[in-house]
């Protein structure tokens, strides 16, 4: 398919309140997003494929890139891991740091807002979140995707260069020891 259709973006919503989860889920679905809603930061990390439990058996550890998440929207005030803690974990992970994170809070505390924005959050939504707030999400997702594509391109270019240099190395190694010695002696004669 040459044309990238208006594919559904997948948003991971995190909120410990069941009511607020229902609400954000409906807001997101009404705005044509695919939604996974979880009740805690640690559950969110599981969905993202970042297992906190290093002792978990390989069978339990989710496959990398199993679920692609295009944006995380999280409540700030949650027991255990706060939205800010979750933000830091995401931004501190090399595989996840380009996923845009939006923080929601019922309290308008400027120092809190600043802390989150400085911590890497794209935006801060005041609760209750409105339908009109949903429009603000897409630009962040698209920015994240273009960063991802850029990274992918860079990775591919790096791979190509390393493949070609590896090829050269392999070719050299394939030469018989005799021929290598000949080449070496030739060089010596030039000095």
């Amino acid at each position, binding site marked *: 398919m040459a044309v990238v259709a208006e594919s559904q973006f997948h948003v991971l919503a995190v909120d410990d*309140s069941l009511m*607020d989860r*229902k609400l954000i889920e409906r807001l997101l679905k009404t705005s044509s997003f695919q939604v996974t809603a979880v009740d805690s930061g640690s559950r969110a990390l599981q969905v993202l494929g970042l297992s906190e439990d290093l002792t978990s058996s390989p069978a339990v550890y989710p496959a990398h890139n199993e679920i692609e998440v295009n944006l995380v929207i999280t409540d700030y005030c949650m027991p255990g891991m706060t939205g800010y803690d979750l933000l830091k974990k995401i931004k501190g992970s090399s595989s996840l740091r380009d996923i845009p994170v939006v923080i929601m809070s019922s309290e308008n505390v400027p120092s809190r807002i600043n802390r989150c924005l400085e911590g890497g959050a794209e935006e801060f939504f005041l609760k*209750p979140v409105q*339908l009109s707030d949903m429009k603000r999400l897409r630009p962040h997702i698209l920015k994240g995707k273009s960063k991802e594509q850029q990274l992918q391109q860079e990775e591919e270019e790096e791979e190509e260069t390393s493949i070609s240099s590896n090829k050269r190395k392999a070719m050299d190694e394939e030469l018989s020891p005799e021929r290598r010695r000949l080449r070496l002696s030739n060089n010596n004669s030039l000095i």
Partner: protein
Amino acid sequence: MSLMVLREQLNVLVNSMFLEGLLDAQFRQLQMLQDASNPGFVAEVITLFCEDSERMLTELTKLLDQAVVDYQKVDAYVHQLKGSSSSVGAQSVKLSCIQFKQFCEENNKEGCLSELNMVKHQYYSLRSKFETMLQLEQRIQAYDSEQQN
């Protein structure tokens, strides 16, 4: 009773709740999110709100009944209640929670007890109207599905 009459009754009820300050604009947001593919959305949110609220009011009553009040815990529950009332558009409950938080911060037991009573009063008034609302909604939807059959 005809569908039109039921709808009219529901409108009158909801409008009166706005006029009395029981509900605010957030409730309109909820109504906007309800549509043919999600006919039960408002009912679902209202039900969750009521379950949540009653649980918190019970906890708050217990906490304020103690000789020595743990204001941090009280504040945590009031904060939750304030949050859910705000999300559903329950304005009078929310406003009462704001006052409650104030008394909490001051560690004012008298104030907290009196405000707890106020919150309960506001909540139960709201709940009884919500019940009527849900009954009307159910009857309207039953009508709608009958029409479709």
